[in-house]
């Protein structure tokens, strides 16, 4: 150690003397006989140099010591260069620039390493043109193993890539995207680093990773100044977030626990741990408590690094990132796997994955829009966030989200609300609470064109001017194509929340495409319905009659949020259930094929309850003649009865009644009301 310090001190003073007279040595002369100050400075230098010269170099440990020494002598060129180098290896790389510039001013150097490091710092500060000049002065180089030996390997490809990034940055910064970027506030962020936000589709719940103290297992991380990662949760209260609280055990452990993904309904959480090279685990929300994270298994996790991931909206698929070499295209790649299937994970291909790294995958609840970060494509440096949409099985060319969302440094782990209007990510931009903070991005879309008016005196013989409004063309309205259905499932009689199973049925295919559960404590549920499907939604629970809803969403249906509370009814005589997924041809009593799933459910109910007797009832709105309505409703009820008897239900257990327009459940004065009145329902007449 003593030898190392001696070498470092010699290095510093030697550089100072040889390189430039302006650089000030750590010498008695500099400290004017203040032996204690000199001793302190030398102690800090030694500690810093020990960490810096270690194999591998420990830049994080070296930096505080170097900074302390620099406070005592700001004008030592080599020390400023060391600090710049340490910052370039930290989470706050952009801070390297003033130190490297100071080092260069104190002791100008013309070697490739100096130009490259200066170029990196300029690049990270978005000083594109200056960075390009410095990169162009650098040449490929290979260095030693340790930082103190000048360890730095830069290939010609690396230099070309950095130049490309700078040019991308120049281009992207010229066309900044219009966004509000708001700090999530002190209720979420701490003075320590907070990052990795994940949000439920309706933005009601936010979870994130924090390195603050205060968690039940909080311990200082020996590798830095912060604490081990823990996961925190908060809920939106209308105007601000509730103060975040640690999830605690069993999710938070003594080691690092980090957020990866939250299912759109907020009921499943993916957590990262650094076992086995980095693995993904899943925790389920049971009532108000998160369960112990379960390993996702070897089809997802390998001995390589699996990091970020995202569920498909139906929960069947997982998009995840791995750096496994098999099937990879270089660096970290994004894969897709069917969780309940048996097949291997599928690489998303060259449209998405580049020879460089991909990270931070997030699939929107619309099932077709994916956000991810990449070091490739037209990144302006490090990881940039990109967006790509899936159309007819093809991913579109990734679109850089642009400046100022993306910066020259790493921009990763970006998630959005289902509407796509808000995004969440972490950043260490100025003005935060300290360390990295979580920010909410509000997308404002293209500039909204102001509208000017003018008038002209167009007729020579008339005095009155003629108004002429100069209108800009209409704006394109891009909204996510997904409907968020949410609400609370309760017992109809007691109004107590129920944990119920929610089946999402593709009526056209007569297939259950996803199954969700309402929360056991709150009864709350949330289902994402990507546009383009006729959905039957069936809410069921043992001991209750099922409840069905229908959402027939054309492919172009824009974002909507629908709240539908579901009171489940117990099987009692007199109870009436509306069958929202029974469809007839217009004006006829012919059952459409999309009705099959609902009819089979009804048949199953009658099979499971052999003493159950039902009256099938048809109802219409008040359009048309009452007699015709009564006749149509009667025939439709009979059609349902006929289906059931043809499928083995005894006719004696069933009755058919047509009520025409005599029993409306809503005013017939609106389209929505008439829609509600046109219905098929059953009434329990015996059990």
């Amino acid at each position, binding site marked *: 150690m003593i030898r190392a310090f001696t070498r470092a001190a010699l290095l510093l003073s030697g550089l100072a003397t040889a390189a430039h007279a302006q650089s000030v040595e750590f010498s008695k002369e500099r400290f004017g006989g203040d032996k204690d100050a000199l001793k302190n400075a030398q102690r800090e230098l030694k500690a810093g140099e020990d960490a810096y010269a270690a194999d591998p170099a420990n830049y994080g440990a070296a930096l505080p010591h170097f900074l302390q020494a620099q406070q005592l002598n700001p004008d030592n060129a080599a020390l400023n260069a060391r600090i710049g180098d340490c910052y370039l290896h930290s989470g706050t790389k952009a801070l390297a620039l003033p130190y490297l510039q100071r080092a260069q001013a104190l002791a100008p150097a013309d070697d490739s390493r100096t130009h490259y490091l200066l170029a990196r710092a300029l690049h990270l500060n978005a000083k594109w043109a200056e960075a390009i000049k410095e990169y162009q002065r650098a040449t490929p180089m290979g260095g030693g193993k340790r930082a103190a030996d000048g360890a730095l390997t830069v290939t010609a490809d690396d230099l070309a890539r950095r130049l490309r990034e700078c040019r991308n940055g120049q281009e992207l910064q010229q066309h900044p995207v219009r966004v509000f970027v708001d700090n999530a506030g002190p209720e979420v962020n701490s003075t320590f680093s907070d990052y990795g936000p994940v949000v439920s589709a309706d933005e009601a719940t936010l979870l994130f990773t924090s390195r603050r103290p205060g968690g039940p297992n909080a311990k200082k991380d020996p590798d830095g100044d912060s604490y081990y990662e823990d996961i925190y949760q908060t809920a939106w209260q209308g105007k601000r977030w509730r103060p975040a609280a640690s999830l605690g055990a069993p999710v938070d452990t003594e080691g690092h626990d980090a957020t990866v993904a939250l299912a759109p309904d907020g009921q499943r959480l993916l957590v990262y741990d650094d076992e086995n090279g980095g693995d993904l685990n899943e925790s389920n929300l049971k009532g108000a408590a998160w369960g112990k994270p379960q390993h996702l298994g070897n089809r997802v996790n390998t001995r390589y690094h699996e990091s970020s991931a995202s569920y498909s909206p139906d929960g069947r698929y997982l998009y995840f990132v791995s750096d496994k070499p098999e099937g990879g295209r270089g660096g970290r790649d994004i894969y897709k796997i069917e969780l309940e299937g048996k097949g291997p994970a599928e690489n998303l291909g060259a449209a998405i994955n580049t020879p460089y790294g991909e990270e931070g995958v997030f699939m929107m609840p619309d099932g077709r829009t994916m956000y991810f970060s990449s070091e490739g494509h037209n990144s302006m440096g490090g990881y940039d966030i990109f967006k790509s949409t899936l159309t007819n099985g093809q991913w579109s060319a990734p679109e850089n989200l642009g400046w100022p969302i993306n910066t020259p440094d790493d921009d990763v782990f970006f998630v959005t609300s289902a509407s796509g209007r808000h995004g969440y990510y972490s950043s260490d931009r100025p003005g935060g609470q300290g360390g990295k903070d979580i920010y909410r991005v509000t997308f404002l879309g293209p500039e*909204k064109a102001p509208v000017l008016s003018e008038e002209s005196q167009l*007729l020579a013989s008339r005095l009155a001017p003629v108004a002429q409004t100069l209108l800009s063309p209409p704006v394109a309205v891009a*909204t996510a194509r997904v409907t968020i259905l949410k609400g609370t499932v309760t017992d109809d009689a007691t109004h107590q929340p129920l944990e119920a199973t929610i089946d999402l049925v593709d009526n056209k295919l007569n297939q259950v495409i996803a199954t969700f559960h309402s929360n056991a404590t709150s009864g709350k549920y949330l289902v994402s319905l990507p546009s383009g499907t006729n959905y039957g939604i069936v809410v069921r629970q043992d001991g209750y009659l099922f409840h069905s809803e229908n959402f027939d969403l054309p492919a172009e249906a824009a974002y909507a949020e629908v709240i539908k509370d579901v009171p489940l009814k117990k099987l009692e005589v007199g109870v009436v259930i509306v069958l929202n997924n029974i469809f007839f041809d217009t004006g006829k009593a012919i059952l459409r094929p999309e009705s099959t799933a609902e009819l089979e459910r009804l048949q199953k109910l009658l099979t499971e309850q052999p003493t159950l007797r039902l009256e099938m009832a048809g109802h219409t709105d008040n359009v048309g003649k009452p007699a015709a309505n009564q006749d149509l409703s009667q025939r439709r009820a009979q059609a349902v009865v006929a289906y059931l008897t043809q499928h083995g239900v005894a006719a004696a257990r069933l009755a058919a009644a047509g009520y025409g327009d005599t029993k409306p459940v809503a005013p017939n004065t609106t389209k929505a009301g008439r829609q509600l009145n046109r219905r098929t329902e059953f009434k329990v007449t015996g059990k």
Partner: protein
Amino acid sequence: MPRNSLLLTWGLCAGALLCAAPARAQVDSVRASTLPGRQLAEKAYNAGLANYSAQNYSAALASFNQALAAKPDFAPAYANRAATRLALKDYPAAVADYDQALKLEPGAYAHYFGRAQAHEAAGEGPAAAADYGAALQANTAYAPAWYNRGVLRFEQGEYQAARDDFDGAVKADPNYAYAYHDRASANLELANWPAAVQDYTKALALQPTLLPALLNRAAAERRTGQLPAALRDYDTYLTQKTDNALAFTNRGNARFENKDYAGALADFDRAIALDAKYAYAWNNRAAVELKLEHYAKAAADATEALRLNPKYAEAYLNRGHAREMLRQADEACQDWHQAAALGLAVGNDYAAAAGCSGDAAEVPAGK
């Protein structure tokens, strides 16, 4: 106006509004002193003309009444009394007198033309257009009838038909500056901008004092992308006429199009200083404040425009934009919706894109 000289044999100016082709009392006065008999009707008729010329319309009316009392089939007296009644804004009586004149002199294009003007003044556009048409059937070379019918058609939004009429006018009178000007305006409305520029230029050549042609030519030039030429025309106008808020506003718009936002702001400032009740200037200044990212000022200017004109859709739209940037999301939504309610449907698009409540797509019916 060259048209007036043609009408001197027939008409007296019936009012400033109609001076482009005014009705005139006949001036082929009868020289009573050389005629035999008492000539009471003729004397009264001539007195009526003198009073009309002196704009003493009541006395003129009394004189023509005397003439007609003495000679009930005196057609020129009916026509001149009609012109007098037109001057006195007694339009039904004027029409009745022209009717009588036409009975006595069927097919006289001047009587049709006069009656057309009376109908027009009474707001009876179709009847006026029909009478201008009848005048033209009687005399296709009568340029004012073409022109006046063209104006009526223009005001009805029938720009193609108006342009055809102005064509007729300039064929009948190749020096008819107003007809060139208004044909240019018809071309402007028909998006035939190069032709509009050409006609405004011709009108200015014939009548350099026709300053509105400079403003209108500038408008046409802007639409053809000739912003420098347009700005020159505005400048020329404003060096000659410095008190026109409309002209400053329109040049401000051109400067806005030219991305000269500081220049536009100065023009809108000037327009407001000249006429603080000119809502367009307030709205347009709000627009330029938006571009300059002075959102609070933009909102304030749009608010003033709305105070002056509470149904000003464009001002609602602009204020919505400003309020969005001021983080007043709910208020922005209200403004965009209001703009849409007042006819700017794009307001609903903005509201939907911003996630305003009530703008989620309607969930399609299941059945």
